[in-house]
Structure formats: structure tokens, C-alpha cells
């Protein structure tokens, strides 16, 4: 066993997913298979590979600091279910 149900539960919590007991055991089983297959990556020597050395040609193009307003606020929030005076309403957030 590479992965335990408790770990699957912890991951679900991190991912904000509520899984049934059935789903937990299903994913545990499946991840076990999948991770066993993924074990192949451990067999390569990647010691010398530095992920923080980049191809100098691949640089982000930057944006000019020039403001524009989207404008159509109604359209922008057309998918929002609870809008009140321009604000998005959600259940009380306890800090």
C-alpha cells in the first residue's frame, strides 16, 4: 500500500471535497495502482537537473501600466447568484 485512506481524506480536505466512505476506499485503491505505475519516475537519475535554470528565450512579455475599465459590470457579474448593491453576498465569514 502506497497510500492510506487517512491520506486520501486529508487530500480531500485540502481540495475542499467531501467524499463518501465508498469514494475514499475507491480512490485509495485506484491511487495505489496509479502511484505504483508512477514509481517509474524514481528510477531516473535527475540529480543534476535544475528546474530553476530556464531557457533564456522563454521570457514573459510584460504589460504596459495603462488602465482601462471593463465597464459592463452587469455583464461581468451575470453568473453571480447573490449580488447585493454590487457586492457578492456569502454566508457569514468568521475570522
Amino acid at each position, binding site marked *: 500500500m502506497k497510500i492510506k485512506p487517512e491520506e486520501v481524506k486529508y487530500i480531500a480536505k485540502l481540495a475542499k471535497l467531501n467524499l463518501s466512505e465508498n469514494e475514499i476506499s475507491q480512490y485509495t485503491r485506484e491511487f495505489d495502482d496509479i502511484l505504483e505505475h508512477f514509481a517509474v519516475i524514481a528510477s531516473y537519475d535527475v540529480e543534476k537537473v535544475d528546474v530553476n535554470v530556464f531557457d*533564456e528565450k522563454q521570457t514573459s512579455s510584460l*504589460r*504596459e501600466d495603462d488602465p*482601462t475599465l471593463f465597464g459592463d459590470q452587469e455583464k461581468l457579474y451575470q453568473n453571480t447568484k447573490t449580488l447585493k448593491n454590487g457586492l457578492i453576498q*456569502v454566508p*457569514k*465569514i468568521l475570522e
Partner: protein
Amino acid sequence: MNWETIIGLEVHVELDTKTKIFCNCPTTFGSPPNRNTCPVCLGLPGTLPVLNEAVVEMAVKAGLALNCEIQRTNKMDRKNYFYPDLPKAYQISQYDLPICTGGYVEIASGEEVKRVRVHRIHIEEDAGKLLHDEEDPVSFIDYNRVGVPLIEIVSEADMRSPEEAVAYLKAVRSILQYAGVSDCRMEQGSLRCDGNISVRPYGQDHFNAKVELKNINSFKELQKALEKEEKRQLELYSFNEGEKVVQETRRWDAAKGRTISMRTKEDAHDYRYFPEPDLKPVYIEEELINKMERQLPELPDEKSRRFLKTYGLTPKEVEILVGEMALSQFYEEVVESGADPKASANWILGDFLRSMKEMELTAEEQPLKAEDLAKLIELIEKGTISGTAGREVFDEMMETGKPPEKIIQEKGLKQISGQDELQAIIEKVIAENPASVEDFKSGKKQAIGFLMGQVMKASKGQANPQVAKSMLEETLID
């Protein structure tokens, strides 16, 4: 046992760009709710971030101003956590390749100058604002602030008292204001600060558990929060309950004047940082660094030295003037308008700051024109009005913004220095107060005080006291 307090600060500063960090939305403060938003900063499906070049420039500038090394290869990372003020459920930040490393800030510690090291500065995006309903169990989200560019300045744990922490924060604030990268208004949240504090017995090498303090909104609260937390930890250690000092985040409750536990390390977030795949690395050319270096104006340290040398002010005066960029600029404008440097400093540090405080104005809102204040100082110096009248004129200037001459004229505050006019008043006072004149002549010199009072009263306060006094003396002796 003697204890030592260890403090480090994380300072978040909103950069003074026109647009947000990854989209073209304006960063204007105080817009209607959610007005400054677009598909990108709202994190709508399919949208992508594009980095604002002004953010890179200002971060470099901030780094140079804080004596940092500028990292030539930059990469953005995602910090993943769910919170409704974060529309993408991750914050684009920098993890292992921050834009600036290894700087320092000099602060006064007692008589000495102390260096507080800056560990790193990184670029990141701000989150939205949550508002809570007073009555109903609901909250509201305003995303106007989402994506406003921030730099996070992380100090080393070099501060040894709340005073030093405040001095460091003040120094950082004024340096960044001078560098022109932020207005650093704590009251508007454009400068925010978290404090890390722990205590340990002198001589102990390792650090004890540190506590992170959040929600500190002013210098005064930083001082208070650190003092309170320092006291709380010391008490626990001294009552042998040191195990109760745990690594945790505590919120400063300004109203209650205490810190409250938010979360302990056990349920800390697992942020799952990884390189932002929507952005390629950003390389900072030497050319840009040089350009920013050239653009850096005179910074506070340099300005302090110059003020001390040029204007003959005391170190304390210079500290206050230079500490606030707007104040130092105002001061120099007043002096450049022709006013005496020392008198200008007296007015600005005295009446001006006092009435700014009373009127609850920020430096930007102050109504005075430098040339008007210079004029007022000159009028008092020349004796056109008295010092007392000057105060009255000044108050009116603060109220209305009117030029001093106009106020003097309207209120009739001009001093009477004319010989003929004064002589007439003096003659009248002498005639009406023979007893006091007799007293003076028989050697009771203090009687002149009473007579001067009568002269001032008769002139409705407008007599120039110096001129009037010498004329009165001359008349009495004759």
C-alpha cells in the same frame, strides 16, 4: 533571569501603479464595490495573468532603496488556499526566487545606529475585501482590491524591542515613500504589517517558539501589540508555563487591547506552492536596474544629513521632518519661498502639526500653500503683525486656505507701528492713568507693565509691542 525579545516584521506594501498587477483594471482607492474588476482579476474561467511592467520596475526600485541585491532571474509561483477574498483560490506570489534579497535598513537604537537586515522582498497580488453585516449572518465581498500589486518585505529577526520594530517600520515607510513606489498609507491599508515575536533568556542560542501577530494597522498599535505579546510570553515563561507559548498566529484586537489565537501550527495551511504555469520567467536586465538606480531620488538618510548641515536644525527636528516625506517637502518649499529655516521648522513642527492632528488631516489633505506660510512667517518677523495675531491668522489659514494678507486685512490685525498713531494712544493712556505714571516716576519700574497693558487695550491689541514699549518709556522719562 534576563530576557531578550526577538522581533521580525513582514511588511506588505501596495505599489503605486496605475493598474493592477495582472490586468488593466485601475487601482484607484474608494471606487464603488467591484467596479475595478474584470474577467482576469475576477478569476473567470479561461482568463490569464499578464505581469505589469511597472510592478517589476517599482519592486526593483524598492529593493535598491532598501539596499538589496536584485535577482536577475525571476519566477512567479502559486500559493494555493481557499478563501473567498481570493477569486482564483490561489495567490500569485514568489516562492523560491524573490526579486530582491539581502538588504538592510538603518534605525536609531538609543545613541547608536543599528542595521536591521532585510531578508527578501517579493512581488505578489493583493486579495479582496470582506465586509460583515451587522445584523444578518452574511458577509459581502468587494474585489476592487484583488490584484493590486504588493511587495512583501521580510526582515530578519534583528529587532530587540517593540521600539526598534516601530523605528524599522517607520524607516521602511519613509524610504518607500521617498522612492516613490507607494504612498504607504496605513489607514488605507496600503502599508500593512505582521509581526513575529519570541522571547528567550540572554545567552540562549536557539529561538523559542515565535508568535505571528496579524491585523496591525498603525505604528501605535504595532507598539502596543508587540508589548502586550512580549508581556504575555514573559509571564508564561516566568510562571513555568513556557509550554503554552506555541508557534501560532494571533490576531491583535485593538479595541480589547489584546492578542487572540487564530490558529496553531498543527492546522496550518499546506499552501502547495508551485511555479505559476501561466507566466514565463522574467529576466531583469542590468539596464533596468541602472535606470531605476538613476531614478531614485534623495532618500531619507541623505536628506537628514543635508537638513542638519544646511538648515541648522536639531537632530530631533530633522527626524520628524524627514520621517514624513510630504512634511519634508512642505518644509523645503516654505524655506525656498524665502522664510527663515529655523522659524519655518518651529511653525511646521509646532502649530502646523498640532492643528493637522486636531483637524484629522493627512499630509496630502493639508490646505496650506508653502508660500503663504512663508509669507506669514515674514510678516511676523517684520512686525507687521504680532506673534499672537500670527497664531490667529494661521488658524484661519488652516480653516479657509486664504492667504495671510487677506486674513490680516479682513480681521484688521495689522500692527500699529506708526509713530504718530502710537504717540497719540500713549499720550491718552498717560493722561488717564496719573497714579501709575507717578508710581513709575518714583522708581516702581513694574508700573510700566500696567501702562503697556493699557496701551495694548486702547489699540485693540494692534500696537506693535516692541515699538510701543520703547516709545512709552521715552515719553515717561521725558
